[in-house]
């Protein structure tokens, strides 16, 4: 299957947007997952609900909220543009932000589960051996939650590749800038005789998803073998 330039562009853009999206959300997701798994504080339920909001709200609503807050005249968007000259609306970076928000709860869930599976006794043991808080996190908690982090990254990456509603609402559908695979498929379906293009793009999506699943399975097995579980 030889790809046309437009198709290559859509695939490449999707990969770039999804990669950036995972890179954006990962540090925050690890922090939030750790807090939710290991800390008790007033308002924890509220934070938990807030994190899960993108999972239950229509993606278009999320896109609209992003537009309101991060748009050129939004409170955060305006500040970003005047301070850093950073523009999110109608840019591929904005697309990454939209997909990061949408895939955030999936990533947090996967990481949180892996943190909850770690025996807190191991951290207590590390403490008695002289490891301070950050040291413990880096030397014990982080390596042990690695399987969950990897799983969360793969899920978030896949979700980012497929995100449609939030992206098209926030950054529109500009070929070469914000037109990822699902948006390209949508556009193809809107044009007369676009059926075959849509089918080719759908096949591409299918192959990317399959590749992602195989990769994550392989990684999970490697980690399991290393830790001797399963």
């Amino acid at each position: 299957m030889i790809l046309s330039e437009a198709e290559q562009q859509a695939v490449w853009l999707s990969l770039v947007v999804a990669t950036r999206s995972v890179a954006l959300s990962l540090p925050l997701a690890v922090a939030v997952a750790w807090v939710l798994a290991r800390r008790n504080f007033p308002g924890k339920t509220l934070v938990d609900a807030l994190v899960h909001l993108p999972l239950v709200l229509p993606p278009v609503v999320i896109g609209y909220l992003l537009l309101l807050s991060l748009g050129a005249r939004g409170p955060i968007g305006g500040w970003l543009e005047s301070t850093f000259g950073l523009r999110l609306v109608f840019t591929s970076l904005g697309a990454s932000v939209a997909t990061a928000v949408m895939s955030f709860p999936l990533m947090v869930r996967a990481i949180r589960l892996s943190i909850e599976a770690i025996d807190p006794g191991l951290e207590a043991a590390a403490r008695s051996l002289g490891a301070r808080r950050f040291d413990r996190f880096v030397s014990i908690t982080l390596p042990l939650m690695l399987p969950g982090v990897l799983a969360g990254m793969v899920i978030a990456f896949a979700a980012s590749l497929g995100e449609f509603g939030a992206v098209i609402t926030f950054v529109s559908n500009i070929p070469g800038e914000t037109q990822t695979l699902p948006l390209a498929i949508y556009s193809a379906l809107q044009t007369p005789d676009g059926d075959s293009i849509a089918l080719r793009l759908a096949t591409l999506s299918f192959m990317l998803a399959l590749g992602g699943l195989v990769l994550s399975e392989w990684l999970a097995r490697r980690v399991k073998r290393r830790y001797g579980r399963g």
Partner: protein
Amino acid sequence: MIEVDLVVTHVHHRQHRAAPSPTNAAIRIETSFRAVTPGVVSLFGRSGAGKSSLVLAIAGLLRPQSGRIVIDGEVLFDSGRGIDLPAERRRTGVVFQDGRLFPHLDVRRNLEYGLVRARRAGGGASISLPVVSGVLGLEPLLARAPWTLSGGERQRVALGRALLAQPRLLLLDEPLAALDDERKAEVLHYLQQVRDEFRVPMIHVSHSIDEVARLATFVVQIDGGRTLAAAPLTAFPRPLVDAGATAFDPGTIIAGQLVAVEGPAGGAGPEVLVVEAGGFGWPPVRFRVAAGAGALPFALGDRLRLRVRPEDVLLASEPWPQGQGSACFEGVVAAGAGDDASSPGSVWSSGRRLVAGGLALRAAAGFSPAALVGEAWRGGEPAHALVTRCELLGREPMAY
């Protein structure tokens, strides 16, 4: 000196947040003892008595309600003065019941975990990896992953890891409880080695009398959240029968010096050790004990620990024929708790002690040599004891 005065309340809840059950009650436990270092303090009591909570409190992993912990002059906790050293700065090496080896690190890196951090924190690292792996036999395991180790090996690695963190105090929380009998004996042997080689003060939690008898220099008996008794093992107040099934009765622990090694009677078989114990104005008593098979790990002059069980002590008013049993000697019957001299026809009640040469041997009820039936013993009466057999428990940790 280990000084511990603690009140700990601990709501014990199972890990992984199982459904709340009625057993999630708060335990309140009080203890107070002073023990000389180096030495092994054994916290002894039935399972679930809150002994482990005490260990966690001493390690700084559980905040006590109030109290004071001072190890060799270093204050780790003092609620009165607002001192609460965080666990990572207490230098208390903990060996947990389940080992708690880090699953993502191999044995060598597990062992080095505390060592590296102790070096980084400054202060010399006098306990080195080669020495520890030599004493604990860890060399063949260094490259292995924790999940490939047997239970006994895992506990040995956990012990080595705690030692290498250069602790001022080693805390052993039922380190043998998860092992089968054979592994228990193996790890116990290593614990004795560690006690005698590294001379790090230890606090050891156990519900096994045998373990305590072999390891301890000082015993703290805990039951129902209270400390029933705290005393050096050889001076432990006995009998302590009121604690029911958990009464601490290891028999009589005797420390003595190896003065002679006799060949076996028939030429073959294990050698017999002659251990001399006593003093205190009475002639010393010589105990004869089988050395067990294998090469003798002891030299003349070594201090050894023996145990005499109550059922192996017979009393008579006439001297026993010489050369019988393990030892015979003369003494005075001491009045002790549980004595009931007035009960007619009894041999004697349990708790009757014979004191001689600074030794207090307890003679048990339940046997009836002809000479003794119907005889009632009163405190202060002279008597002749025959120790029919005694058991070698290993080396006696140095005098304190």
